[in-house]
């Protein structure tokens, strides 16, 4: 379980997060939704210790992220931020291989090589394994980063907008994979999602944020309602049902 207690965050004099207290359950696929600038990414980066906590307290499975050594946390949670253009010329297999680094610190064993192999396969990258990162498309690079995170094989996965650059089939494939990880392997996933229907179709738990605060949280059918979503995104939204899950209509 991730516990947030009174987390505040400022960048310069701008308040990004105000007094966030929440619990993100273990063994669930949790989606973090909300409009641009709501503070979703900042919150995810704070939990993933990519930013240091200014005020409040964040614990992941009882470990305080501000106190626990980073190398220990790297075996508990894998975090993928939004990728900026990187000039490094690594082969995709080498990049994914670095996902195992927290486990072997430079001396890969058979189990590490097997995990890399599996991750490449799962994300459809085996044929591209020997290509350099700057020789593949944006979506393929994004999948390589995801495969690296996946290869890290941690209890928790924190992903910041992993659907960026992915086409329909890979986006759906990723969500199905994450859902499968939760259900079969007992992992916990926290994912920032922009397109609310991916949350509606796959998430077990939803946290909705606006202007640095949590405005709603709970099961998809409780959070994804006409009124809540219209208020959240400041735009009229209708919610219907499709195969027993909410379907959000917002695009016409």
């Amino acid at each position, binding site marked *: 379980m991730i516990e947030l207690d009174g987390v505040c965050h400022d960048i310069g004099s701008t308040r990004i997060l105000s007094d966030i207290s929440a619990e993100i359950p273990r063994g669930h696929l949790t989606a973090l939704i909300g409009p641009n600038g709501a503070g979703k990414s900042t919150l995810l980066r704070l939990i993933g210790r990519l930013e240091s906590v200014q005020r409040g307290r964040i614990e992941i499975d009882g470990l305080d992220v501000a106190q626990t050594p980073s190398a220990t*946390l790297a075996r508990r949670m894998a*975090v*993928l*931020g939004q990728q900026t253009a990187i*000039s*490094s010329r690594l082969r995709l297999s080498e990049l994914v291989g670095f996902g195992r*680094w927290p486990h072997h610190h430079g001396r890969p064993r058979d189990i590490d090589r097997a995990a890399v192999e599996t991750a490449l396969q799962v994300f459809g990258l085996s044929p591209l394994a020997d290509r350099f990162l700057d020789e593949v498309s944006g979506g393929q690079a994004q999948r390589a980063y995801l495969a690296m995170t996946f290869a890290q094989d941690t209890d928790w996965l924190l992903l910041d907008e992993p659907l960026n650059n992915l086409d329909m089939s890979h986006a759906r494939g990723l969500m199905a994979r994450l859902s499968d990880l939760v259900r079969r392997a007992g992992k916990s996933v926290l994912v920032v999602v922009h397109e609310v229907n991916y949350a509606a179709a796959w998430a077990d738990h939803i946290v909705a944020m606006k202007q640095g605060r949590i405005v709603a949280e709970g099961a998809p059918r409780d959070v994804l309602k006409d009124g809540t979503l219209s208020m959240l995104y400041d735009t009229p939204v209708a919610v219907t049902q499709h195969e027993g899950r909410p379907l959000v209509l917002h695009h016409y």
Partner: protein
Amino acid sequence: MTLAALAPLTLASLMTGAASVDIFAALSDPRAMLVLMESRLPRTLAVLLTGAALSVAGMLLQAIVRNRFVGPDTVGTAESAALGLLVVTLFAPAMPIWGKILVSSLSAMLGTALFVALIRRLPPREIMLVPITGIVLSGVIGSVVVYIAWQADLMQYITTWLMVGEFSGVIAGRYEMLWIAAAAAGLAWLAADRFAILALGDGVATGLGLSATSVMRFGLAVVALVSAMVVTTVGMIPFLGLIVPNIVSRIMGDNLRRALPMVAAAGAALLLGCDLLGRLMRHPFEIPVGTVMGFVGSGIFLYLLYRRPAHG
């Protein structure tokens, strides 16, 4: 291929010099032995060590700042090393050589850290601002060095440090510091994975449990130490630490554990080739290797720029 080039270059370097002796007869001819052990071998080793260490330093620097267009000679490292050396020469001229090198290394590290701090504030997409900032910074520090040297009448010193590195003064007993530079580069190789991960961004490094700051500090220390050693013993060599990493990365990629040995070998071979060229062109007189390298290096650099303008 690089290794295949190193052996004949080394042999040619041992055979080339102003004194006409047959080094193959060294075992029976004491004079040839003297020339070989006191002059030819030290010089050849000095060139190899400098070439390898400086190229590795360039690769580390490029990983730390995540930009391909920088080298230890273009971001103020060499000028900062010279500034430290100048200050010691002025205020503690009696300090033993290792003390001078230590001060010079610290100064080089501060200068390079200043560069890194400056470029962290630049917009990440403007990749060309990084090398420009480096050139401006080295210009500023360089002019401080020149001003102080001018006032203190030490211009000749700094010319040998900064303008054109050359190996003609190398004899046994005057180059051994370079082994430390090469050892520092070797030490960096042991942490090659960490630098490769750091090159992917602070976020990725932190996510994998690395402290981006300490990896960066270690890298800066190696770059500074290597630059300070080279500046004090033979003077700065332009372009080497810039182009060799680019060429090797182009062919082998940035998995530093695999690429660094090749960077070291290629750097050693290229510098030795340039040194030989400088020794042979007006034999028995010499053209400083810094001049030859500047000519050859700028040509290669322009070619690299032209071939690949879109990538940082």
